[in-house]
């Protein structure tokens, strides 16, 4: 019996999709239980499984016996606008989820890089926050709980559906940014905001140095922008660097903050939408994307460092939060060198997206500080004892 025949017998024909371009069978379980069944079998049979969402963020090129895609896990079992919470399956596209939430007056304040149809699960697993992290924090701050399936097919719940919860260890935070190394996320409980009544974007063009300084001044001024993002000319498709300020909230709050902005140009609603959309999609175009996180005061120095080591064509940065995302074409050697240089400055580099040869050589993570490597390895063994999940955690 081939792997495909066994899986078909297990989950039915409906779960088998067209194979990927590399001819790896692609399986789309229709429920969390089916994911558990599939991974439990994979563990017993010694199959290697790569995890995919919509197939838009990570290149689907990891060598594997089968590809598990979450795209049929696309239900939204609960939206509670009164409580500002929702429960959604991991395979739902973020564009669809946003629409369903907006219909109920609710909003998920995360704007990850990638195409609009990128899955919720992929955003959580890679912890890729976008410009809104300035005002609303990293991805983990939007999670109330997750349900995940381990590499040997166990279904584990963590957290809950309420705003605060300290019952047990916070395995949700382990899954957020775990890149699937500790299991496949199947269900996510989300913390929402009320759909903002006002949402405006102002932009200013200038030199990078000048705009970084202005960003710092804005952050120090008491304004509370939802996004305060410095974008490179190529990414913004403008002649010079752009500093974009997004203000959201009640009309009174937003207009009070707008008054403090000075010489910025306000974008029309559709211009603002396409500005942020282009920025997010820009990171799904080039072969390699990574993020680094330093202290805010080091932002300028870190941008210089990137410019020297890998170029600064495609960059989006939140200087006031110390977060920088880079995209482009580069080599394994350069990435490894850059990670070492940054590690000496206590700045982690997380490889978010790259072709498999680069991912496996560099690793999503690396340069752990003292003693953390064995903990990560121990957690990996705990949640995927047979090594069924193909995830390039640490590189070579």
């Amino acid at each position, binding site marked *: 019996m081939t792997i495909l025949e066994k899986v078909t017998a297990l989950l039915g024909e409906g779960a088998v999709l067209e194979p990927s371009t590399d001819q790896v069978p692609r399986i789309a379980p229709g429920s969390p239980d089916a994911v558990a069944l599939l991974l439990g079998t994979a563990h017993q049979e010694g199959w290697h499984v790569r995890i995919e969402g919509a197939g838009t963020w990570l290149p689907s090129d990891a060598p594997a016996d089968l590809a598990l895609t979450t795209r049929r896990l696309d239900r939204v079992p609960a939206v509670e606008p009164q409580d500002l919470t929702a429960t959604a399956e991991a395979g739902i596209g973020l564009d669809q989820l946003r629409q369903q939430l907006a219909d109920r007056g609710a909003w998920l304040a995360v704007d990850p890089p990638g195409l609009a149809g990128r899955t919720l699960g992929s955003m959580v697993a890679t912890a890729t926050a976008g410009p809104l992290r300035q005002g609303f924090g990293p991805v983990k701050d939007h999670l109330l709980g997750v349900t995940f399936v381990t590499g040997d097919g166990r279904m584990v719940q963590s957290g809950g559906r*309420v705003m*605060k919860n300290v*019952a047990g260890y*916070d395995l949700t935070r382990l899954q957020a940014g775990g890149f699937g190394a500790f299991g496949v996320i199947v269900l996510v409980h989300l913390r929402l905001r*009320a759909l903002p*009544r006002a949402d405006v974007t102002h932009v200013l063009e200038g030199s990078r140095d000048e705009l970084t300084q202005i960003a710092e001044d804005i952050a120090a001024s008491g304004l509370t922008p939802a996004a305060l993002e410095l974008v490179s000319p190529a990414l913004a498709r403008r002649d010079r660097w752009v500093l974009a300020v997004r203000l959201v909230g009640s009309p009174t709050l937003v207009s009070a903050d707008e008054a403090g902005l000075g010489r910025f140009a306000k974008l029309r609603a559709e211009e603002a939408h396409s500005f942020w959309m282009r920025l997010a999609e820009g990171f799904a175009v080039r072969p390699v994307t990574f993020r680094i996180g330093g202290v805010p005061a080091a932002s300028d120095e870190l941008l210089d460092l990137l410019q020297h080591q890998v170029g600064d064509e495609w960059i989006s940065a939140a200087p006031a939060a110390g977060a920088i995302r880079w995209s482009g074409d580069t080599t394994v050697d350069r990435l490894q060198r850059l990670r070492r240089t940054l590690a000496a400055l206590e700045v982690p580099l*997380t490889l978010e997206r790259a072709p498999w040869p680069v991912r496996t050589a560099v690793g999503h993570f690396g340069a752990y500080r003292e003693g953390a490597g064995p903990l990560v390895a121990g*957690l990996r063994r*705990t949640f995927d004892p047979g090594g069924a999940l193909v995830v390039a955690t640490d590189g070579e």
Partner: protein
Amino acid sequence: MSTSALADDLGAIVGSRHVRVAPAERATYAMDGLPTHRRLPDVVVLPGTREEVIAVIRLLAVLGIPFVPRGAGTGLSGGALAEEGAVLIVLTRLNRILKVDAANRSALVEPGVVNARLSAATRPHGLHYAPDPSSQTACTIGGNVAENAGGPHCLKYGVTANHILALEVVLATGEIVVLGSPGGEPWGPDLVGLFVGSEGNFGVATRITVRLTPLPRAVRTLLADFMALRAAGEGVSAIIAAGIVPAALEMMDQSCIQAVEDSVYAAGYPRDAAAVLLVELDGGNTDAVIAETESVIDILRKSGARSVRSAANEAERERLWQGRKKAFGAMGRLSRDLVVQDAVVPRSALPDVLETIAGIAARYRLVVSNVFHAGDGNLHPNISFDATDEAMRVRVELASAEIMAACIAAGGTITGEHGIGLDKLRYMPLMFDAESLGAMLAVRRVFDPEERVNPGKVVPVHACREWTSAHGRGLTDPGRKPGVGPKPDPVGLDTGPKPRDPGLGDPRAGARGQLVLP
């Protein structure tokens, strides 16, 4: 090894005056802020430096002796109590603020730094440490990290987990690990996020990098009073649904109002009100804060507030807050002892759950006062009782269990900020199935394979499904040292280790969602 020999060895590291073995000295550490659990540690040691902590833990690792880290002992779940055979490591002498980095809004502190002291020290820089548990004038940052402590202002600013950037941790083996980075970005998986709230089960944090938050430039504090609890609950939902995120949104019921007004902390709350809401709005822009305050006043009136009062000045604001922050103390007037309960429900369920709690209190003939973080749905039903009255203690226990069951049934959780500790072990199977509890235990074993740090807390080991690690060792490994691993889940209101009350039933049989009661 005898206790006195152990005390000598510990004394050689920290100085003999920082080792407590006399029963009267140890008795100080037999309880935390929850009066229903009592454990007398064998030895108490108070290291004065990070190096001494490491040396103590390395000594205990060699000897295979379990230990429990403790801060100020203000916890409310019995989490910092040491069983017989365990050493209590008290970290209050590690109380130095090592660095304040105003430009990057962070500080590096030792675990024994008192929460309120950190905010006071950073105030000259225009910054503060945002999480503000009611015990903030006594509780330590290390304890806050262990419990993932909250507080009134966590509604807007987030709980402890949102404010910890990096940690230096000593594992049970004595190894040192560094988690997180100065900017808060993890090096890989978010091990800081995993460590915060692990209740001391993963190791001892010796250095903590915290995020500091700018002091708001404008603050407005409102007091609204309602003639019905339900109307107050609906007012809370209406504010949040309007897209307004107050800095704090606190509720007190009539019993709590009266206790406060009878005490030295009297804040001028209307005594005849069924509930009061304390709402605070803050921000960097005065005009915006004033405008949002007007919106909130309007919403509160429409929700049925009898009156809405705005604090005219800082003194009045402090007075309004003092009543709230000292409410637990004020309740001490009601009876000899107090169980401060903690649970979270969806905000919209608050009115129904409060009615259910009132019904439970009436049925068990107990006084339950509610003071809580309404904006988060984080309830604190506080049960007044007399611990010397055995029958009353049983009623308190039964009522607590029913309150927990009601909160879970409403879609909530058994603790929002106080932790599981000893007190809530037996409720864990109501929240999590055996597989998920097994996962927690397996994670704990990655950090502490022998389960020597704070044994017997958080995860009810007997309710866990067995996870076999890659090393092939199961959770029910017969080779485990007796007395080292977690003991069976203790029975609520205890005064020391004792055999399980058979009446509670076999926790392994406790299916999810089914409350096992005596």
